[in-house]
């Protein structure tokens, strides 16, 4: 038997078996009770050649329809410079493991430090970690920190303007953690400050989670929210779309203790939902409560500035059952992706791209409303995404799909959540409006 990933010649196998002192390779498993030995066949086809693999996956890829994308709801069709996929395809990056051996992992440690710097800048917070699985789990992790650091307070409030897919994850984590998760009512598409105050007054609140822009694309005004939280020692957690923070008022400016969200908006391919990466940043005060990998600057034996995994005493492999998070990895390669993206787009480019989406969304919204067939659901300032109510929404949606356009994400009975990025052109918008 010979196969391209098995380098052993028959002679070598024999020499190795001799050294180990067994006759046959299967004798290595003589210690496993006979009844447990697998003697059947896996229900998997026989090996495919590389040509067959290519054909197989090409065929599947062709069964997916690539569309002109006006859908958002947390995942946006952004432009990414061509240099990025080239660089992240370098196998020194993607075939390495967690940078435990700092002396031969400075590449990874260096870019994670840059990633942390960029997230701290964008969110306007003191420190960021090396990334988390996605935006929803980063939000759930912030919830767990809030519950763990508060003395026995077990209620977490979340705004009902949060993306429902994030709420689904919060509900799951909260249920098994014994956290009492309570929604703050929305009013005209934004978080009701009155209801927040009322629910805080009931006591026992460990933290409050809001989203910016919210699920409907609305840029909310969180003035006073942080004070309301801090007065009762509750943590204020703001979830934001990372790219939008190049223009939007930041979690730091709103007085957040934790900023969380997804970095997909920083150029990552939509890729049917992943891989993306979550980000998390916090105030200096919360630094040692923050879960996840963190890279820090230090010196080496030769006196050079170098980078290393640090603050590891917070982590699960040391805390074991006393841990408040079990995360022991980051989405490192995706962090590299957005670090290169943020380096290439830079201070000006990210603002410019974001503004294009913002202007495009407002232009498209005007055009749609002008037809008289679509109505803006809420009269609130929105960012690059907006919710309209459309008569015969489903017919419109289906017609758009037939025309190769993904017109948005359905919300409720007649709502459609429409997102615009720098990739969408005037022609594409006209084509969409014409279908109304």
């Amino acid at each position, binding site marked *: 038997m010979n196969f391209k990933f098995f380098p052993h010649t028959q002679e070598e196998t024999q020499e190795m078996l001799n050294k180990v002192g067994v006759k046959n390779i299967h004798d290595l498993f003589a210690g496993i009770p006979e009844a447990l030995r697998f003697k059947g066949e896996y229900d998997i086809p026989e090996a495919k050649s590389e040509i067959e693999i290519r054909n197989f996956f090409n065929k599947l890829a062709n069964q997916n329809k690539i569309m002109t994308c006006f859908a958002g709801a947390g995942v946006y069709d952004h432009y990414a410079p061509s240099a990025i996929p080239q660089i992240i395809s370098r196998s020194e990056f993607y075939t390495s493991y967690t940078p435990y051996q700092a002396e031969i992992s400075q590449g990874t440690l260096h870019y994670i430090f840059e990633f942390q710097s960029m997230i701290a800048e964008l969110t306007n917070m003191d420190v960021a970690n090396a990334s988390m699985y996605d935006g929803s789990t980063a939000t759930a992790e912030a919830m767990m920190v809030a519950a763990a650091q508060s003395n026995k307070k077990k209620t977490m409030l979340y705004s009902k303007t949060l993306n429902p897919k994030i709420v689904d994850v919060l509900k799951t984590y909260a249920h098994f953690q014994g956290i009492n998760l309570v929604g703050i009512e929305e009013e005209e598409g934004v978080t009701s400050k009155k209801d927040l105050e009322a629910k805080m007054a009931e006591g026992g609140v460990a933290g409050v989670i809001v989203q910016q822009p919210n699920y409907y694309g609305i840029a909310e005004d969180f003035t006073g929210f942080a004070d309301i939280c801090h007065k009762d020692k509750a943590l204020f957690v703001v979830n934001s779309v990372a790219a939008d923070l190049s223009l939007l008022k930041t979690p730091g400016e709103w007085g957040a203790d934790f900023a969380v969200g997804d970095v997909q908006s920083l150029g990552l391919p939509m890729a049917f939902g992943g891989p993306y990466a979550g980000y998390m940043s916090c105030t200096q005060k919360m630094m040692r409560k923050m879960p996840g990998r963190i890279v820090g600057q230090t010196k080496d034996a030769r006196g050079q500035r170098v980078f290393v995994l640090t603050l590891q005493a917070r982590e699960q492999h040391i805390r074991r059952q006393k841990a408040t998070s079990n995360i022991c990895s980051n989405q490192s390669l995706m962090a590299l992706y957005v670090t290169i993206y943020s380096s290439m787009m830079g*201070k*000006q480019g990210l603002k410019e791209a974001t503004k294009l989406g913002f202007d495009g969304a407002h232009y498209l919204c005007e055009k749609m409303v002008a037809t008289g067939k679509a109505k803006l659901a809420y009269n609130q300032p929105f960012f690059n995404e907006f919710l309209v109510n459309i008569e015969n929404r489903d017919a419109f949606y289906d017609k758009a799909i037939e025309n190769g356009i993904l017109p948005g994400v359905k919300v409720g009975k007649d709502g459609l959540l429409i997102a615009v990025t720098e990739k969408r*052109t005037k022609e594409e918008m006209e084509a969409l409006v014409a279908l109304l």
Partner: protein
Amino acid sequence: MNNRLYGNLIFELSQPGCKAYSLPKNEFGNYELPSNLKREKDAELPECDELTVVRHYTNHSGNNFGVDNGFYPLGSCTMKYNPTINEEVAALPGFTSVHPMQPINTVQGALAVQYGLAKSLASISGLADFTVNPFAGAQGEFTGLMIIRSYHEKRGDTKRTKIIIPDSAHGTNPASAAVCGLDVVEVKSTADGLVDVEDLKPLLGDDIAGMMMTNPNTLGLFEKNIPEIAKLIHDCGGLMYYDGANLNPMLGVARPGDMGFDVMHINIHKTFSTPHGGGGPGGGPVGVRADLVEFLPKPHVLKTENGYELDAPEATAEYNLNNMHVGQFMGNFLISLRAYAYILTLGKENLKMVGPYATLNANYIKECLKDDYELPIEGICMHEFVFDGLKDKSTGVTTMDVAKRLLDYGYHAPTIYFPLLFHEAMMIEPTENESKRTLDGFIEIMHTIAREARETPQVVLDAPKNTPIGRVDDVLAATKPILNYRQSINQ
């Protein structure tokens, strides 16, 4: 750093006015965001030209060491080869350019991948079905434990709050249990490194939710009493959880489902060759026996006569045990895709040889090195084994020093100081992809280091010398943390 020029941070290469992007002109007119919603100061991202950025990151890569660079015997991490064909198919636009909320009839190819991977893993594991949604092994553990709790809760059995975990377990096991709201009860190991069944018996009762085990365990030993252990746990009403961290040697050898496990996760970045990516993204699919399928996270892919569909119930105000969500969508899709490509590339006949070759390689290294390194547990190991440091304890050279010296010789170090059962643990896992020639090279260097430790210990104590940087001061890093560029310049 490989040289002075490229040791900079990207921020230090920034020149105001430089740019590495080009965007279309604005044809939409200018709209204003209300000023109270704008950030006051710009985020200080770098401003560089394209070549500067490309060089900067290309040079970063030169300071890294991956499986493609050399032998990577990192125990418990299964650093196998990451086939390039996986990368190729994962880059197809039909996979990278679809939105996760497209109508399902426009993403049948993507769903076919998710379904195909889940069913393949089920067959390999001897379980009924899998979810591919968990993002990583740790999240897989968490998901599996939530499934166990859901099972008990659905039956109204609320007093099962304890989970039994061997003292040799990965640290993540107790952490996952704690995060899932379970109390950890530790069971001891016997002198020969296996779960002590006699120590287990008194722990059993109607408050036990289940038991988490790795098999082979973290010492690389097969827990041969597993049928008895599984029976004890099942008899007291608990479920058996299999930590798939060490699944690799079981390919072609034994299946967790047949051993009596009810729930498990698989680290596809270990056993199924997806890249470790410098720490992620990975994947932690979770499998269950038939009567637990209802508790798998949603959305879940189903195959019907009309093609692939999603089981995705509407959200309800109260938490619904049959509507668990562990992420916004369905995991790290492009990583699942790579794992599926690997499975189809090997096919059923080659998958069956993965375990045997991985095990042969580990035993070969062990036998060749046990004259110089302390082997605490004799006998045949599975895919990995543990040395307790150098045999000669008089040299002052520790496991840390040996690890650092290996870097000088162009090898990645083994996993060190784990498992905690030994003071100088050095855990070696070669994987099936390494040739005898590669192993012989490593063995020779390990002997050389042992000789250096006896004859010229200072050389080992001062290692590494040939790496881009010297040993790092991790006490300084943790005492006065500098975690980003702004803190670095303000310091």
